């Protein structure tokens, strides 16, 4: 009970912190929308009217409180740019981003775990060194370089020319696969080096534990040792990493990929909102991301209990 209360307070403080910082940065310092809205040769009254509608004439704290209240009551408003309801925009773009990022995210982690296990099992041998060397190589290549190279190699006449160069005309499964292929591969290549290295370090540590010697002393094969004992004991850090990277991958990762390939997902919408000062959209994205973090934290705690009997 006390535990739940502490979590709730912490979550609330986190959301307040994130919204406050984003409010200061994106709303207080953000671009002024007045003149894009009022049109040419507006009278002073018209300008004042628009500023009032946008809330610009309110004092700082009042505007922040309004923002937080709107957020907690889920009154997200409408985009300044298009007039579309923010909830509509999110309902349209979030699924696109998820469909775009999920395959690469899952594959990148699964492959990282498999390679990490393979390396930890052959610790110090050439296979381990090869995997580690490839990880460092992967970590040294820029996201943008990977995206450009894969696009040229897979989607242009200079390479294999297999997939669409950009865009997102998804109507059915084959079209989905053809549009998602290059972004997925990019995401896997970008994250694989980091993932492999992270997971290898965890597995090496777990493989050095006493109970691993016990398993081996009772005839467990290296495969059983790694995939059963080491993997299950490593689930807590694995879950932590996977869970906490979800919001970042979905927003930050999709922002890059969507900007590059011109895909109408939430990352692109959020980025456009920043550059154009579309505050209702921004407020919603940032606030909901913070809320997602809190929910994820709770879900992560629950998952810990599921995988580790020692977590009370």
């Amino acid at each position, binding site marked *: 009970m006390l535990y739940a209360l502490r979590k709730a307070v912490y979550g609330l*403080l*986190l959301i307040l*912190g*994130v919204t406050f*910082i*984003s409010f*200061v*940065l*994106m709303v*207080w*310092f*953000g*671009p002024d929308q007045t003149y894009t809205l009022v049109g040419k040769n507006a009278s002073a009254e018209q300008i004042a009217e628009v500023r009032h509608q946008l809330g610009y004439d309110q004092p700082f704290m009042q505007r922040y409180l309004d923002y937080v209240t709107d957020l907690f009551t889920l009154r997200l408003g409408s985009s300044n740019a298009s007039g579309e309801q923010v909830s509509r925009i999110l309902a349209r773009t979030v699924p696109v981003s998820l469909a775009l990022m999920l395959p690469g995210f899952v594959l990148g982690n699964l492959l990282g775990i498999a390679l990490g296990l393979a390396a930890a099992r052959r*610790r110090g041998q050439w296979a381990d060194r090869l995997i580690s*060397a490839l990880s*460092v*190589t992967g*970590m*040294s*290549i*820029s*996201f*943008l*370089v990977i995206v*450009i*190279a894969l*696009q*040229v190699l897979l989607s*242009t006449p*200079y390479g294999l020319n297999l997939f669409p*160069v950009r865009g997102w005309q998804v109507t059915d499964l084959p079209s989905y696969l053809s549009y998602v292929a290059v972004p997925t591969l990019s995401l896997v290549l970008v994250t694989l080096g980091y993932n492999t290295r992270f997971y290898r370090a965890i597995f*090496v*540590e777990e493989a*050095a534990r006493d109970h691993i010697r016990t398993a081996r002393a009772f005839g467990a094969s290296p495969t059983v040792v790694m995939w059963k004992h080491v993997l299950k004991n490593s689930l807590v850090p694995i879950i932590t990493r996977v869970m906490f990277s979800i*919001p*970042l991958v979905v*927003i*930050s990762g999709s*922002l*890059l990929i969507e*900007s*590059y390939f011109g895909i109408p997902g939430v990352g692109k919408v*959020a*980025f456009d909102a*920043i*550059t154009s*000062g579309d505050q209702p959209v*921004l407020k919603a*994205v*940032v606030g909901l*991301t*913070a809320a997602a*973090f809190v929910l994820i934290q709770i879900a992560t705690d629950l998952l810990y209990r599921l995988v580790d009997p020692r977590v009370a």
Partner: protein
Amino acid sequence: MNAERRIWGQLRDDPAGLAGLVVVGLFLLVAMAVWLGLIGQDWSAADGARWETPGPDHWFGTNILGQDIFERAIYSVRTAFEIGLVVAVSSTLLGALLGALAGWYSHSWVDGAILWLKGVLDSIPFYLFVAAVAFALQGKGWAMHVAMIATFWTTTGRLVRAEVMKLKTREFVLAARTIGLPDALILGRHVLPNTIHILLVQASIAFVAAIKTEVILSFLGLGVQDGVSWGLMLAESTQEVLAGHFSNFLAASLMLFALLMGFNLLADALQDAFDPKQASQ
């Protein structure tokens, strides 16, 4: 110092780490030569035709404006070091400071506040944060530096906090407290110097992260504002490669890769040298 010699000895026996050091050293020399005005000064002169192929006049060819790609790639070494050094040093120092405070006053309100700030910064999507900072600072060139420093310190802070909490219970620190030395002196003189192994490794990791982030930000139009960088060259190349002009892309990506690889190898070697137990695993 003894530890220094041991670490140097370890580094010497690590061919990959040594290679990394050499690569980073070479790039540093290039950066200094650019600073001194010896090379790379003609990066903005449009003295060629558009998209010339590599030749004796323009070793790596030219870009759409007829600018020499070799000059631009060389000048970008300086840009990379400026960004990398500023961000790595500042974010590491900030992380050391906040981490040390949090660790020293662990479980007090100071610690709580710093942890809260770290949690908040870690939960704002990074590129949105940078974009917002960039706009808040009205397109100033150092907006991206500020954004990176403000977010990169959290990892260093967490590690230093844990280390300081460990050091706090060690005899030499207890002794210093018993004889009544002020907290600030103990922290600065006895505690922080013992976190140097974390700081060096984190700084080299932050350097890599800063350069990689610059590339993305420059592509998004939020990075380098005046001057040239590998990120800007890559951003330029996104259109060129579709038309079959690869010079910009190859020059920027290969140099970027070499420097990042050098730093990553160096960071690994440092980590191993500071923590031999971990290295032998």
